[in-house]
């Protein structure tokens, strides 16, 4: 991690370079670095390291593949405006192959890809957008005569890192939806990890929040490795919490205030959308905490009144009916529920126990004393009556 002081040295040479290269004021650049560092959940001071990494002249080569997809992931990435991300995509990294954004076409484009792979062998980053069809040997998606499966395997072989962006690349996404009448999707769509047979980093979502992708890439630039991932390959900084946990409508859920149908009074008042099928309670993503697409807050589905469809969660998005009630995943906060049997009532206090003991003791003592006295007087009486000589004999009775 960089020296914290360096960030305040705003006159340093490299910073001026990056200013020129990115056509971005220094102030804005540093703000961007701070945003990315915060998204990653990095500690204070990390923005300096991020800035240093981006300032470094060497731009990593990125090869971006498109398969069964809608290009929504690329589109959303382009619409991140804070700062102007297209500049970063083009200037921070060297985007050597991207079917939507590159100028080249046809064989020229394929040649550029091959050239970049050769030149940066073992160092380039491979980003995959879209699912890979597997049915009928993958003939449902071909680029330049090559099937998606072959192209992916070819590109992945020498990549330094593979990133699957979007739900389609992550686990098949929308193309992999299985109809209730069938037992597989029409083209047998699969995610990147399944084709390569090894785990890759996934940024699921339809589309994913561009900052999640960007932050992961910058993490790679800064530290030379991918951020910490969960067992589905998702970076933990973005996908470790359920949407439900931080949802802005959570208070309504807790209070039992639900929108019952679209446009009813509860819906208009911003009540919880759980009853309309919101999948927030079973979907891991940071939609509820990180503004989506830089168009201002509250512009994510739940924010504008539509239940979450769970687009980033395998088995939920594109699989469960949109208005089917979600399964609650985090119902075990241990302190929040009373147990079936809870201890109630006060135990004996010292004072009360002592008082009870004193009363019982006094009563027992008095009874014993009285019994003894009665016994003694009775014995005395008996003795008198029988004129016997030993009056104490029966005293013990």
């Amino acid at each position, binding site marked *: 991690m960089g020296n914290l002081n360096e960030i305040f040295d705003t006159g340093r040479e490299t910073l001026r370079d990056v200013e020129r290269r990115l056509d971005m004021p220094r102030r804005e650049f540093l703000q961007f670095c701070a945003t990315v560092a915060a998204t990653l959940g990095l500690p204070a001071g990390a923005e300096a390291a991020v800035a240093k990494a981006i300032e470094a002249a060497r731009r990593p080569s990125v090869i971006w593949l498109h398969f069964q997809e809608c290009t929504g992931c690329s589109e959303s990435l382009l619409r991140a405006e804070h700062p102007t991300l297209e500049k970063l995509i083009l200037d921070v990294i060297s985007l050597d192959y991207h079917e939507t954004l590159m100028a080249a076409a046809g064989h020229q484009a394929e040649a550029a890809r091959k050239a970049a792979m050769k030149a940066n062998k073992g160092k380039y980053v491979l980003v995959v957008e879209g699912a890979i069809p597997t049915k009928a040997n993958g003939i449902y998606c071909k680029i330049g005569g090559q099937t998606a499966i072959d192209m992916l395997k070819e590109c992945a072989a020498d990549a330094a890192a593979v990133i699957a962006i979007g739900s389609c690349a992550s686990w098949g996404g929308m193309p992999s939806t299985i109809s209730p009448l069938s037992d597989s999707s029409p083209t047998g769509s699969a995610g990147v990890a399944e084709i390569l047979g090894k785990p890759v980093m996934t940024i699921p979502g339809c589309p994913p929040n561009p900052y999640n992708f960007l932050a992961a890439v910058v993490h790679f630039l800064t530290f030379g490795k991918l951020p910490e991932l969960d067992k589905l390959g998702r970076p933990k900084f973005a996908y470790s919490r359920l949407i439900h946990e931080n949802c802005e409508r959570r208070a309504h859920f807790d209070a039992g205030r639900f929108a019952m149908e679209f446009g009813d009074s509860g819906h208009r008042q911003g009540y919880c959308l759980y009853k309309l099928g919101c999948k927030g309670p079973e979907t891991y993503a940071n939609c509820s905490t990180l503004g989506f697409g830089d168009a201002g807050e509250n512009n994510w589905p739940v924010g504008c009144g539509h239940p979450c469809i769970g687009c980033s969660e395998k088995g939920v998005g594109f699989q469960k009916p949109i208005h089917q009630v979600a399964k609650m995943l985090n119902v075990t906060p241990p302190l929040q529920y009373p147990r079936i*049997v*809870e*201890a*109630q*009532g*006060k*135990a*004996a*206090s010292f*004072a*009360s*126990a002592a*008082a*009870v003991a004193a*009363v019982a003791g006094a009563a027992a003592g008095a*009874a014993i004393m*009285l*019994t*003894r*006295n*009665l*016994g003694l*007087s*009775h014995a005395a009486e008996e003795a008198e009556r029988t004129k016997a000589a030993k009056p104490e004999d*029966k005293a013990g*009775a």
Partner: protein
Amino acid sequence: MANNHYAAPAPVGGGLVNIVTLSCGVLIALMAAILMVRFLFGLGAVTALNDGYPWGIWIAVDVVIGSAFACGGFSVAMLVYIFNKGEYHPLVRPALLASLFGYTLAGAGVMFDLGRWWNVWNMFWPWSINPNSVMFEVAVCITLYIVVMWIEFSPVVFEKLGKDDARRKVSKLMFFIIALGTVLPMMHQSSLGTLLVVLGGQVHPLWQTPALPLLYLLSAIFMGYAVVLFESCLTSTAYRRKLETHMLTPMAKIMLGVLAVFIVVRLGDVLMRGTLGRAVEPSVQALMFWLEMACFIAPLILIGAESNRRNPARLFLAGVLLMLGGSLMRLSGFLIGYETGGDFSYFPTLAEVLVTAGMFAVEVLGYIIITRRFPVLPREELQAVK
């Protein structure tokens, strides 16, 4: 001793200020202070009551046990007037006095415990009463009985005030009042047992049985005699009077008879319902059961023989043991053997104990004042000086 010529009652006389009466006064003052807090701030402010133990010692001890202790009047009156054993007549007034206090205080104790006491008139309001409720039966009987007992005791007051006219009028109706005074306690003492039936499985099977009314009635009767033994020995010792052994000895025999019937019913019931197994498991409840049984069986050994029954020490001890046994049975039914499910605990607070102590103090103080000033105890011809 079969003659029926006995000394007429007369005030004992003597001073009212001594260590006993002063201690009683202190306890009563403490009780009054605690009750003030209770009525201003609610039951929770002074008691340890909770929803697992909605009834504490104010009910189990002050009312259920307290009223059983107050059965002396009824037991002796039944003996004298119903079974026509006139020789016990001198025991009637003191026993009646103790009963009067016991019941009046039990009634007051209920009022302390009632959460919404200002609504208590509903208990007698025809549009509110619920004849299905055992509590209703108990409440009405106890209230009536308190009134009946005051009438039964009124000749003492009239005698003191010299109102022979009024006394004569009351005495004309006395046979009916006495009959009432026998039936009413039989009704509510049995019902105090029935009170537990609706609690169902929440009461430990050793104390939950359809025979509860019979058990509580029989135990109330012998506890009544036990209290008379206790009270007579205590009074004689305290006032330095001659022991009333000549009456207590045959009465103890009757008491043992009732006790024997009770033990047969109690054990027979436990055996017939097949709950003896619950009495041999390692639990507090099983221990309480055997403790209770020991208290019932010990008097049979202690004063089973005629010669032993002449020994006042043994009589006194047997009386105390039977009072204890009956109390344990009631305490176990209402508190120790009550389990509502869940992890509830209850132990009376100091304030609760002090109120209970205060109630007994009122009883003792009242008994002292009245016996010293009103004709209750038989005139003592051979009374020692002072």
